[in-house]
């Protein structure tokens, strides 16, 4: 019963924003590739919430939670690629500004920070066997927190893509989950 409630809460927080964003009146004025880019970003943000919850067995009942965590990690990277690629097709100069930290929009820097942290996390995962377990864990948790906090700040400062209430709830849950996971794994202790 408790497990089912936790699952329901996590899935609502993670995927409710997708449903609510699909009702945005602005979609009528946007091309399909721009819409797809936005929804790829929202979906990646939702999946990010599940990551620490799967790794720490808050979400229980799955036969191979670590395997699911790894598959979702790869899916998040794919969604980020779709997000940035779709925005690039929509308006190349705006994406170049963001990637070179010259954008006038304050949210771009947080998104690009999360992007690089996500790529670094993928690289670190590929090199995992060459690392000491402690080094791997610290690196992975730190990058996870940077991705989560960067994504939360990025989304909160954007206007016109997500529904504000569900966005705030997901951003808060994401920030909490990533910091809780870092604390629970004793990232901050020696």
């Amino acid at each position, binding site marked *: 019963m408790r497990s089912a409630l936790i699952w329901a809460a996590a899935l609502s927080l993670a995927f409710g924003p997708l449903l609510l964003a699909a009702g945005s009146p602005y979609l009528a004025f946007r091309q399909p590739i721009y819409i797809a880019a936005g929804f790829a970003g929202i979906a990646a943000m939702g999946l990010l919430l599940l990551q620490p919850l799967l790794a720490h067995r808050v979400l229980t009942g799955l036969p191979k939670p670590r395997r699911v965590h790894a598959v979702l990690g790869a899916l998040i990277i794919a969604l980020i690629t779709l997000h940035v690629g779709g925005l690039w097709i929509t308006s190349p*100069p705006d994406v170049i500004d963001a990637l070179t930290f010259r954008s006038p929009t304050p949210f771009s820097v947080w998104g690009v920070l999360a992007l690089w942290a996500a790529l670094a996390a993928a690289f670190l995962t590929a090199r995992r066997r060459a690392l000491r377990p402690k080094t791997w864990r610290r690196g992975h948790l730190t990058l996870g927190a940077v991705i989560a906090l960067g994504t939360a700040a990025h989304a909160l400062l954007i206007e016109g893509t997500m529904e504000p209430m569900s966005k705030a709830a997901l951003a808060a849950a994401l920030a909490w989950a990533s910091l809780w996971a870092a604390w629970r794994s004793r990232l901050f202790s020696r």
Partner: protein
Amino acid sequence: MPIHSFPRRTFLIASSAALATGLPARASGLAPTPTMRGGANNYRPGAALTDRIGGGGFLMTGTVRQAGSGAPIPGARIQIWAHTTEGHERDAASHGATLTDAAGRFQMDMPQIVPAFGQPHGHLAYDGDYDANGFQTVFLRPVMAAAGLTTLNADFVLVPA
């Protein structure tokens, strides 16, 4: 963030202080408007003069003046573009140009601006290469205080080329 309003505010404060003390306004009173970050994105050099962009319904307004004296610049060509209910910034149909009147004012009837790339914003250009008045090029990117507004203002203060 309406960065463009700061030079004007500074000018107003400076000029009212000058009036209050009975001194003539200093020639250096009106600071030039700097080009804003991202202002030139999706610009289309030489977009045609038009009375209205698309179906209209949203009003872009502004003034064009000279740095220092604050004198209006009549006949200055200003290009305006934005992501609106009728199209993306990159669409040719989303762009149009207009000329300032004798008082240096311009306005453009255009479709409603909608949030794009995270902010409801417009773009304006004074391009020295497409204007005989001889001032340096400036690109502006004002952001609307709220997405539901139906007007947006942007003021240019230009420096001779």
